[in-house]
């Protein structure tokens, strides 16, 4: 199955859309725009509407998606994306409002944002929320800017952020963006932060500690209280990466664990679609002592009337050109309203149930490096198959042949040949059982006929791709061949 490129479907003269007839007297652009600024040539294919529809429909069928099948990608929370939320986000009163409208003409939208802020504050145990960040990494950046602003205001001379070696790659990259040096903290043999290593690195120039809890191994760090006191003892701040928030919703809150700053991923925990890689939304929550640093504008509610406060003395400024990825936020609120307090808590409960069930079942055939209850995800290692010449990559590719998406692989970095599974609460026992059977079958194949794995996948639209040539001679633009 190969779909021609849009450019190969081009036929000059075809049109996919007709505009209304121009109804004003016209002028000659050449009389109004200097010649050097008038465009001479524009390359863009011409297709009819049906051809366009078919092209993209055919392409869509070459994707795996949650709507098609199980997608246990760890740390990504590929849960069901409720259809009704798409309808809500497309209501004219939400989709067709302009960001520059006066506050009095968008009271419904502002109320919706304020309500979302309140619910997220309650879920995280924080005092104030900004909905501006457009993604998780963007939330990290925002949170770190807030941490930096806090230290700058206090005259603290802080240089370092501590990050466990199991952390997401965005964590250290975000630190560099705000000028902090990264210090990696080791994990202990239970997969949690090594307290001794942390103590050794707690110095006066520590600006903060950035962690997920449960961490990327899916393990809850029960020492979090002590970690928090240690960091706070040098006036460092605790940052909560909310990538794994789906594990604890309604059970415990970052604010109660001692975190000062939190980001959430609405596209993970709150069911908004991942869209093939975006758009997401990464709200940031802070405790009261950091509220003044939040990005502006703030949404203010007075007597059930909403307005925007554009300036604030200590604000870090703005991190986005608008109030946030509004329609994503609409979907997240719809999800919270539908589920309610009991449904949200149940979502985490069943996410954790599913992960533990899967881990327990897979333990017979696969090596589980940290053998204890997990939260919403868990990590196994493919290293035991090395003697058959099989790598984790091969197992991942073989899963594709059975119609499943692979787990996250080779992450976290501290587990050799890692495979990270996150089933989410929306998957049924039947789905999990079917998947577990296949995992067992693959383990057997690895021993008996490892070529099936090494040559996999064979049933997909394309087979393994030549990534080396792609990177050596990048063909990334149809109009400029390498």
């Amino acid at each position: 199955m190969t779909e021609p490129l849009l450019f190969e479907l081009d036929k000059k003269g075809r049109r996919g859309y007709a505009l209304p007839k121009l109804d004003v007297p016209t002028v000659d652009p050449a009389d109004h725009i200097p010649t050097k600024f008038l465009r001479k040539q524009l390359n863009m294919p011409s297709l009819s509407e049906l051809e366009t529809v078919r092209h993209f429909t055919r392409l869509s069928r070459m994707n795996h998606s949650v709507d098609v099948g199980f997608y246990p990608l760890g740390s990504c929370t590929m849960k069901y994306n409720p259809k009704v939320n798409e309808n809500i986000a497309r209501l004219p009163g939400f989709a067709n409002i302009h960001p520059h409208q006066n506050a009095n003409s968008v009271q419904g939208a502002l109320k919706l944002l304020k309500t979302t802020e309140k619910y997220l504050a309650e879920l995280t145990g924080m005092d104030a929320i900004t909905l501006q960040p457009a993604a998780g990494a963007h939330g990290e950046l925002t949170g770190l800017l807030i941490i930096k602003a806090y230290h700058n205001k206090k005259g603290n001379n802080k240089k370092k952020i501590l990050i466990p070696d199991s952390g997401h790659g965005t964590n250290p990259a975000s630190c560099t963006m705000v000028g902090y040096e990264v210090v990696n903290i080791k994990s202990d043999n239970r997969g949690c932060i090594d307290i001794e290593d942390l103590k050794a690195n707690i110095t006066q120039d520590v600006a903060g500690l950035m962690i997920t809890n449960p961490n990327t191994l899916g393990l809850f760090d029960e020492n979090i209280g002590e970690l928090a006191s240690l960091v706070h003892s040098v006036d460092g701040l605790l940052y909560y990466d909310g990538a794994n928030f789906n594990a604890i919703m309604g059970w415990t809150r970052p604010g109660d664990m001692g975190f000062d700053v939190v980001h959430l991923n609405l596209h993970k925990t709150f069911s908004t679609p991942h869209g093939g890689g975006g758009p997401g939304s990464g709200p940031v929550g802070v405790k009261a002592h950091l509220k003044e640093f939040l990005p502006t504008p703030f949404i203010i509610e007075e007597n059930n009337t909403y307005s925007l406060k554009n300036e604030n003395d200590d604000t870090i400024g703005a991190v986005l050109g608008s109030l946030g990825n509004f329609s994503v936020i609409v979907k997240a609120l719809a999800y919270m309203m539908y589920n309610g307090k009991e449904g949200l808590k149940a979502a985490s409960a069943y996410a954790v149930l599913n992960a533990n069930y899967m881990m327990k079942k897979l333990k017979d055939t696969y090596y589980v490096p940290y053998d204890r209850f997990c939260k919403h995800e868990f990590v196994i290692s493919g290293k035991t198959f090395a003697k058959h010449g099989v790598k984790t990559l091969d197992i991942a590719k073989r899963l594709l042949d059975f119609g499943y998406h692979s787990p996250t692989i080779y992450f976290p970095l501290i587990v050799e040949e890692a495979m990270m599974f996150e089933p989410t609460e929306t998957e049924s026992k039947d789905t999990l059982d079917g998947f577990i059977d296949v995992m067992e079958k693959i383990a057997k194949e690895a021993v008996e006929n490892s070529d099936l794995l090494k040559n996999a996948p064979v049933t997909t639209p394309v087979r393994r791709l030549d990534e080396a040539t792609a990177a050596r001679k990048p063909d990334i633009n149809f109009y400029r061949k390498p």
Partner: protein
Amino acid sequence: MKFSKEHEWVKLEGNTATIGITDYAAHQLGDIVFVELPNKGSKFEVNKVFGTIESVKTVSDVYAPMSGEVTEVNDELDANPALVNEDPTGKGWIVKIKISDPKEYDQLLDEAAYKATCE
């Protein structure tokens, strides 16, 4: 030819040292897709980063095994970075430098000692 613990090799001819990465390192990196070369004329202290090597899934710094000034860079790697995989100690050389301290050569490992570090 001598070696550094950071997996570079050095071939010394008079005052000029040719530098590349070892066969072991090239193998560990996998398919090399890009070599970021220093500029001719730039100066490096021993053990300081002077370039990076990218493979499909990883990136690695290259450390100067000796101090000196870059006199030549292997421009062919721009068009064909795979040379580092195919012939790391030959056509896949990275830079030539005019060394500033010949004594540093004595600090480097011989082949047997280097091989021992890779095990």
